[in-house]
């Protein structure tokens, strides 16, 4: 290292640095226009002048060209230096009087007017662009031409250059923002489009694919990176390598082949959107304001190309009239299926657009609005109330009108009238396709695909591919929404785990730590480690100053700076410092605890300290990166952040890692397909199961399912499932039994079972709720009064016995569903009706069959059967909820009257048989079980999971899981998937040796607690109970916290008026100390 003096302060630097670099690193501002860290210094702008003194002799020189030398004295702010810089600035200002960059840098050194004759140039001839083009990019498409005052930068002969790669580096480095690129490039330069922003924004050649990418590491796009585009021996660019202080850039990295020994494979290659250019009539790719749904999703996103302001691409204007067109690339000849998710995302887009700009008029053109998921119809209702317009039509064309990019949609409305309407923006709800690379993967694995390209699976083995041992999940099996995908993923994991049951845990190598030192009685001895994070922090914040400041804080025994505190050698140094300086608290000032706290806590454990004796100051993500242009203020803020962390560190305590024993058995409530599937999935992995069924036999609702689309026999499946369940050595089946009471909590439940007066108590670690649902017994449409009126389930039984003799049959859909009383869709009835219709047509091809419906919701692949049914002559007539069909008994049968909205007149159908698709309704006993388990029901009285999308089989209460119809209406295939998923989630718990609950949880301070119980109700985990005990001869009330249930959210401590309860590690006095430290001026 070389020692020098800058403005009276000592500094040290590596020998190859220039004075400019060292000054800037020390936070001293030196103006410069022609300097760029990726290029050798050039000394053209002369703004970086400083005074250097060596051996008593001083001179004014360009600091960018002057290397540091031992004993050098540098003065950056003497009168002479400033005066010279001002003259240089005046010269530059005279050359480029209208350049904002020059004006700004001149103003900074106090020059606003030039005394020299003005020229109207836009280029200061700094040579950055020519140097970057020739020296870095090895291209040489532009250079200086002419001499003296005719000198300028241009491509040869001032014509576009065939050498130019249009990489844009010249434009990027230019301090005055002159666009040479257009002139130099033979082809019009185009930005590299960001895949994540669906082509609506640009991205560099080296980039982090999206903000939440895991791992959050940059990748190089070798297709556009100049280093890779140029011949290897040229060794072009490599600017990123120069900037990356961590040395993470490796241009030689190659694809590696790794051999793995595995027992099961799960494939989840996902989907992509259909190529909209197939629907040329909608103008995608042709008109800028026709967007795909994915693009619009990005437009709506706060981190999207317009920062969450809804704009249209053509002119950046905020659109007032937006249209969504549904089923683009779905439900058509070449994609004879429904993509299942587009209706709901279109509704979501509409509501979000209205949230962004309340005045927006949003129109959705749709065929059937398929809001079939849990809570979806209510959401659809909300959109209608919010003024979203729904038009039942499939538009013919979209065309652009006028210059500004407005669009006209032509469509035929339901009445058969031609309409055209203008919109500012059109969004195409694009259908799903299997990902391009999925086919290659499937081929390589020897997994069969269907004609439509999706992976072949069967409804009763929905997670198995055609090859044993290869499981499949996600949208590669069929288009589906997030919750179904999550369920399939968990289910596939459980299926894989069953295959690997014997090997479970055999590859886990436990890590050993030294015994933990007891530091409880000691005065805090704090070590502070401040990270430069390369230039990320050190480039803005004066790290040495922060370290110096940290040393001055109370209880700080040691402080040091690291280039990267998280690097292996820094970690070793930290362990050593803990040892040497007997540190008992550690503060790291670096990045965010959300990513790095676990690493540092582990280092503490390795050094024999409790991991909770650690605190972090986030001086990168929340300081240097967000105050990049204010180094002084950022340094001051960093000092404050370190002060706050130290203040907390003085008060933190070791928290013992707690472990609790757990019972490895599960209780499954409900013996239908869901319950049996879950029980078997657990038992096959070796866990004991108590399966409780209140009826005298297993089977549940599936006993009524006679047909499946692909011809598999559900009754055969069911009887095999029952046999396997009854015969499994790990499953204890309790028939004719109900749950009478549940005590305990995750890992340790005790349940009383009651059967015909007999009681039994079982112990278990987890509960799976699979209590099923019922079919509504309606009184509508003469059901129960006329024997010609059946429910769909009853009809199915008759069909299976070939007892249907009717010639004209009418089915009514949505009986009891999607009504005020039951505002949800029963999801399975549309497919069931069509399945039965096809069966009937098979048995009685000449029968007349009418299906009266509101929306046909044959999502996914069942759409093809809807088409088949129409081809076979089944007639579908839509009705509006306000003009429901009227049914009356006639002499020889039934008479149905219905208003056909297309013909707009009443139709009369005389029929022999009326079949009602009645709603799926929750079971009556749900509330009781819910209370026993302390889990919620939704407003439709189905069980309510922890998160509708992301945690579809978990409850917020740990150790309790959910599957089957008790969750919401669903078909057999979905039930099997969800049951396997519930077993999978239960396995994550049951497979543990012991439970290790969160350590930072609430603790009652008995002497402060007077038992007012304010905290008990707000606790979301029911972890608190009011207890009484005898104290000094009197009854003392106090609250008890259940350590297994508490998650440390701290709602209790914020509720308590008496400091009677707090959360460890986030105690009020600890937070208050942090706040107080924040307020030090």
């Amino acid at each position, binding site marked *: 290292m070389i020692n020098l003096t800058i403005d009276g302060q000592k500094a040290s630097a590596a020998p190859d640095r220039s004075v400019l670099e060292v000054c800037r690193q020390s936070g001293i501002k030196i103006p410069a226009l022609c300097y760029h860290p990726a290029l050798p210094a050039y000394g053209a702008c002369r703004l970086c002048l400083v005074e250097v003194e060596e051996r008593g002799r001083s001179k004014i020189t360009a600091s960018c060209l002057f290397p540091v030398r031992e004993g050098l004295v540098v003065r950056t702010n003497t009168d002479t230096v400033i005066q010279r810089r001002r003259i240089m600035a005046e010269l530059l200002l005279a050359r480029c009087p209208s350049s904002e960059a020059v004006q700004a840098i001149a103003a900074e050194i106090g020059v606003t007017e030039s005394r020299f004759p003005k020229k109207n140039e836009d280029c200061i001839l700094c040579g950055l662009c020519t140097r970057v083009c020739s020296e870095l990019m090895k291209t040489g498409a532009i250079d200086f031409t002419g001499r003296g005052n005719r000198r300028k930068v241009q491509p040869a002969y001032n014509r576009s250059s065939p050498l130019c790669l249009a990489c844009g580096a010249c434009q990027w480095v230019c301090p005055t923002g002159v666009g040479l690129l257009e002139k130099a490039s033979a082809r019009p330069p185009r930005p590299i489009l960001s895949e994540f922003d669906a082509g609506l924004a640009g991205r560099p050649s080296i980039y*982090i694919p999206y*903000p*939440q990418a895991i791992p*959050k590491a940059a990748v190089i796009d070798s297709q556009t990176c100049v280093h890779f585009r140029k011949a290897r021996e040229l060794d072009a660019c490599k600017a990123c390598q120069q900037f990356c202080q961590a040395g993470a850039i490796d241009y030689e990295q190659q694809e590696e082949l790794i051999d793995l020994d595995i027992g099961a494979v799960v494939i989840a290659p996902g989907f992509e959107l259909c190529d909209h250019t197939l629907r040329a009539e909608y103008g995608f790719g042709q008109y800028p304001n026709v967007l795909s749904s994915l693009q619009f999703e990005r437009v709506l*996103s*706060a*981190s999207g190309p317009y*920062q*969450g302001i809804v704009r249209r691409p053509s002119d950046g204007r905020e659109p007032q009239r937006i249209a969504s067109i549904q089923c683009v690339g779905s439900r058509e000849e070449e994609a004879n299926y429904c993509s299942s998710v587009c209706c709901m995302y279109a509704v979501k887009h509409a509501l979000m657009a209205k949230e962004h700009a309340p005045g927006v008029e949003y129109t959705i053109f749709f065929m059937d609005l398929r809001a079939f998921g849990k809570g979806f119809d209510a959401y659809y209702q909300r959109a209608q109330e919010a003024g979203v317009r729904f038009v039942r039509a499939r538009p013919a064309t979209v065309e652009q009108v006028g210059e500004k990019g407005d669009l006209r949609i032509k469509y035929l409305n339901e009445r058969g009238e031609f309409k055209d309407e203008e919109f500012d923006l059109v969004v195409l709800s694009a259908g799903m396709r299997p990902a391009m690379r999925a086919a290659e993967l499937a081929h390589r694995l020897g997994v069969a695909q269907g004609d439509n390209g999706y992976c072949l699976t069967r409804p009763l083995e929905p997670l198995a591919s055609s090859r044993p041992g290869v499981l499949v999940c996600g949208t590669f099996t069929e288009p589906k929404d997030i919750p179904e995908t999550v369920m399939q993923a968990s289910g596939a994991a459980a299926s894989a785990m069953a295959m690997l049951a014997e090997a479970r845990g055999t590859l886990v190598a436990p890590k050993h730590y030294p015994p933990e030192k007891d530091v409880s009685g000691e005065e805090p001895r704090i070590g502070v480690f401040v990270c430069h994070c390369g230039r990320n922090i050190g480039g803005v914040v004066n790290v040495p100053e922060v370290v110096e400041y940290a040393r001055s804080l109370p209880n700080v025994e040691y402080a040091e700076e690291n280039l990267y505190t998280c690097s292996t050698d820094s970690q070793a140094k930290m362990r050593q410092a803990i040892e040497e300086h007997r540190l008992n608290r550690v503060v790291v000032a670096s990045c*965010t*605890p*959300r990513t790095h706290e676990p690493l540092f806590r582990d280092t503490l454990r390795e050094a024999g300290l409790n991991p909770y004796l650690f605190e972090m100051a*986030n001086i*990168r*993500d*929340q*300081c240097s*990166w*967000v*105050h*990049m*242009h*204010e180094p002084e*203020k*950022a340094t*001051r*803020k960093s000092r*404050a*952040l370190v002060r*706050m962390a130290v203040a907390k560190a003085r008060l933190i305590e070791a928290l013992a890692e707690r472990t609790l024993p757990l019972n490895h058995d599960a209780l499954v409530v409900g013996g239908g397909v869901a319950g049996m599937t879950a029980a078997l999935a657990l038992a096959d992995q070796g866990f004991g199961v108590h399966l409780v069924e209140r009826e005298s036999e297993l089977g549940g609702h599936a006993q009524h399912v006679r047909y499946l689309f692909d011809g598999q026999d559900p009754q055969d499946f069911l009887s095999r499932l029952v046999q396997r369940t009854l015969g499994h050595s790990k499953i204890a089946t309790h028939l004719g039994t109900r749950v009478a009471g549940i005590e305990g909590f995750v890992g340790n439940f005790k349940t009383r079972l009651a059967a015909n007066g007999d009681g039994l108590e079982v112990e278990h670690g987890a509960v799976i709720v699979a209590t099923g649902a019922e079919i509504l017994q309606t009184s509508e449409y003469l059901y129960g009064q006329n024997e010609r009126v059946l429910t769909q389930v009853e009809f199915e039984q008759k069909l299976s016995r070939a007892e249907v003799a009717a010639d004209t049959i009418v089915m009514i859909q949505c009986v009891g569903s999607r009504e005020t009383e039951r505002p949800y869709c029963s999801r399975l009835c549309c497919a069931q009706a069509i399945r039965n219709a096809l069966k009937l047509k098979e048995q009685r091809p000449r029968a007349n069959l009418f299906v009266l419906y509101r929306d046909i919701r044959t999502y996914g692949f069942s759409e093809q059967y809807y088409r088949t049914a129409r081809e076979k002559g089944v007639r579908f007539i839509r009705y509006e909820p306000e003009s429901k069909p009227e049914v009356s008994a006639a002499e020889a049968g039934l008479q149905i009257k219905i208003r056909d909205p297309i013909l707009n007149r009443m139709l009369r159908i005389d029929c022999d048989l009326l079949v009602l698709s009645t709603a799926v309704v929750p079971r009556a006993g749900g509330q009781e079980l819910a209370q026993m388990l302390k889990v919620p029901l939704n407003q439709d009285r189905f069980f309510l999971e922890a998160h509708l999308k992301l945690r579809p089989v978990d409850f*917020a209460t740990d150790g309790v899981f959910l599957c089957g119809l008790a969750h919401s209406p669903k078909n057999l295939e979905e039930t099997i998937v969800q049951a396997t998923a519930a077993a999978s989630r239960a396995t994550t718990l049951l497979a543990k040796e012991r439970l290790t609950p969160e350590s*930072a949880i609430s603790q009652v301070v008995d002497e402060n607690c007077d038992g007012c119980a304010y905290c008990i109700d*707000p606790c*979301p985990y029911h972890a608190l109970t009011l207890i009484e005990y005898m104290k000094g001869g009197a009854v003392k009330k106090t609250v008890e916290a259940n350590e297994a249930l508490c*998650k*440390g*959210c*701290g*709602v209790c*401590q*914020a*509720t*308590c008026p008496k400091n009677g309860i707090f*959360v460890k590690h*986030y105690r*009020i006095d600890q*937070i*208050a100390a*942090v*706040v*107080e430290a*924040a*307020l030090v*001026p």
Partner: protein
Amino acid sequence: MSEEQFEPIIVAFCCNWCSYAGADLAGTSRLQYPPNVRIVRVMCSGMVHPKLVMDALNKGADGVLICGCHPGDCHYLEGNLKAQKRAEAIGLLLEDFGLEPERFRLEWVSASEGPRFAQVMTDMVEAVRSLGPSPYRAA
């Protein structure tokens, strides 16, 4: 040079799961906002006792923010809604202490809303700057 403008100190209680992550995302996205904010990481907006807010204001904070997950997104189910209820009470306390209501705010910022985080911080700093120093600030 003109007279130095007033630099308020804002204490922002940010929940670990959403808002603190949103603040990190603002960082990774290099979104600039004024350096007047001091983020205090808490596990949930629902753990912030009103006393902490009032103490901060009494001891010289010029403004206090509580930032949590959007309703429905709370990691602990409904902690943010509890925070919302308490915010109403805090509003009443401000009046008793003779403080302007603008000195305290409750905001929802999700983990993916880096731009929103930067915006909320900028707005708060500017709003408090225009109010001037807190009357409780040590002279």
